[in-house]
């Protein structure tokens, strides 16, 4: 039993990002995986201490660049809680609609890259990116930018939705729903996908919670935990949706769960449009009217598309004294060290792909 140590370097032809894996191999079977991270570390938590409160959202958005508004919204909620500002009701519905659109966009990117990881280069990616472009067009109409929108203000939004946003959204969502059926048949009627994704990379439920994973990875293992149902925020307690749970815990379950979550998001958006009240949705201007009390501590939990996101804010006069970000991708990456024993080399990247990592959030 001779062990070979190889290095899958930081620059490699998959679309994950900058991650270095040092792998111990016995023939073709993996004994141990050791990730080396930190190639994208730029000290975000330190930089937020030098900027005023509402100058920080651009930093927060560049953490997870596939669904930027989810991190931005968590930070703005923390500041609102520290100052004691209430969000207007129409603004709450608008925030929920835009957040669920982000979730659809992020899961579409996952469907695109799962083909890349299994060796089927770029066909599925071209289809999925084309659909993601259509969703990003919608967001560009609502906020003005494709990828980094700084449109949240304290107590509301920067601007209301454009007049016929609802019709165009419903058209796009019908198109996306048809495409989800096509992706399902593309993947599930193909025996190669079944062979390569079923019964590989199994994560049992007791081990999953102990390792600290959250999000779709945890729900595909059978544990019922979603921040939108456990401690609901905004209007999630008034909308009707289900949490999907699958029990197998292998790669196929993790892929299938994200597909089902996309359908739930479409239902949520349609219901939110019906219930949205008319009124005013604009928030306060950026300059704070009254500063928060010194050393006030605030803790906010949200359900980002990748997992559970928590922001812990210690407030000072004009700038945050300390902002601590609990990033879901950081601890989801640690799970690969406990899941990789016994896998083959080609399955390692398939398993890593179903964890759905964003390296900007791992390194912060």
């Amino acid at each position, binding site marked *: 039993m001779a062990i070979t140590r190889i290095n899958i370097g930081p*620059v490699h032809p998959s*679309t994950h990002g*900058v991650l270095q894996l040092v792998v111990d191999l016995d023939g073709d079977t993996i004994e141990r995986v050791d990730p080396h991270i930190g*190639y*994208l570390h730029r000290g975000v938590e330190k930089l937020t201490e030098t900027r005023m409160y509402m100058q920080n959202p651009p930093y927060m958005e*560049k953490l997870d*660049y596939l669904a930027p508004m989810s991190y931005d919204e968590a930070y703005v909620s923390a500041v609102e809680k520290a100052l004691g500002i209430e969000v207007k009701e129409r603004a709450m519905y608008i925030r929920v609609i835009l957040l669920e659109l982000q979730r659809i966009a992020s899961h579409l990117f996952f469907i695109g890259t799962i083909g890349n990881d299994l060796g089927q280069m770029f066909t599925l990616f071209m289809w999925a990116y*084309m659909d993601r472009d259509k969703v990003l067009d919608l967001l560009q109409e609502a906020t003005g930018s494709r*990828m980094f929108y700084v449109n949240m203000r304290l107590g509301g939004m920067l601007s209301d939705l454009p007049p016929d946003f609802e019709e165009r959204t419903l058209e796009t969502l019908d198109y996306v729903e048809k495409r989800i059926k096509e992706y399902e048949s593309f993947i599930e009627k193909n025996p190669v996908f079944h062979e390569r994704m079923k019964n590989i990379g199994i994560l049992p439920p007791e081990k999953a919670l102990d390792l600290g994973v959250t999000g779709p990875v945890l729900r595909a293992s059978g544990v019922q935990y979603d921040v939108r149902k456990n401690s609901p925020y905004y209007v999630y307690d008034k909308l009707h949706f289900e949490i999907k749970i699958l029990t197998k815990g292998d790669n196929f379950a993790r892929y299938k769960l994200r597909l089902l979550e996309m359908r739930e998001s479409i239902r949520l958006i349609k219901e939110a449009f019906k219930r949205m009240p008319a009124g005013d949705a604009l928030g306060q201007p950026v300059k704070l009217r009254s500063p928060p009390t010194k050393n006030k501590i605030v803790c906010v939990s949200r359900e980002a598309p990748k997992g559970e996101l928590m922001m812990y804010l210690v407030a000072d006069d004009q700038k945050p004294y300390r902002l601590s970000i609990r990033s879901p991708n950081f601890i989801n990456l640690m799970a690969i060290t406990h899941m990789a024993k016994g896998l083959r080399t080609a399955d390692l990247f398939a398993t890593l792909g179903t964890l759905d990592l964003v390296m900007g959030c791992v390194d912060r």
Partner: protein
Amino acid sequence: MAEEYPEEEFKIAKKEMDRLVYESLKGREVKPNVMFAKMSDLSRALGISKGMVKWSRVNSLWPMQFGLACCAIELMGFGSARIDAERKGYLLFRSTPRQSDVMLVAGWVTKSMVPEVKRLYEQMTEPRYVIAFGECATCGGPWFESYNIIRGIDQVLPVDVYVAGCPPKPENLFEAMIKLQEKISGKIED
């Protein structure tokens, strides 16, 4: 085509790590490692006219994608169905430097990544070009005051075209590609 490295930027910095990184990268010269780097040599050896060599070199630049962070998503959008990069010759985004002409640096570069970037650039065969895509590769971007990043990739590599934006839309990269092609065809007068 001679390439100059900005050597006065390799100063000795405060921390030991900076010193080690920069000391290891200083003083390496670029020797052309392809026999026919000049167009006149190539056209004489192959027996075709200079115009043919210029046409073939300008219209088929194969990129080496070096997408590190958020700008990589827009880079993939540049290669995908809506703004198609392949119609202008940018085929086959590959990760190997040995078979590519243009290096598209997209995203911020940290001190840990500087030796890798430099090594990959030196492995590319001549003639080679660099496009700095996005604000983080141009000047450091919003992370200008961070303790772990390099302020702009032009402290380490010679850059031909800069693209501004955070992130630039894929149409911007298309225009940068056309500018690079004009720059190359204007410069080739060997």
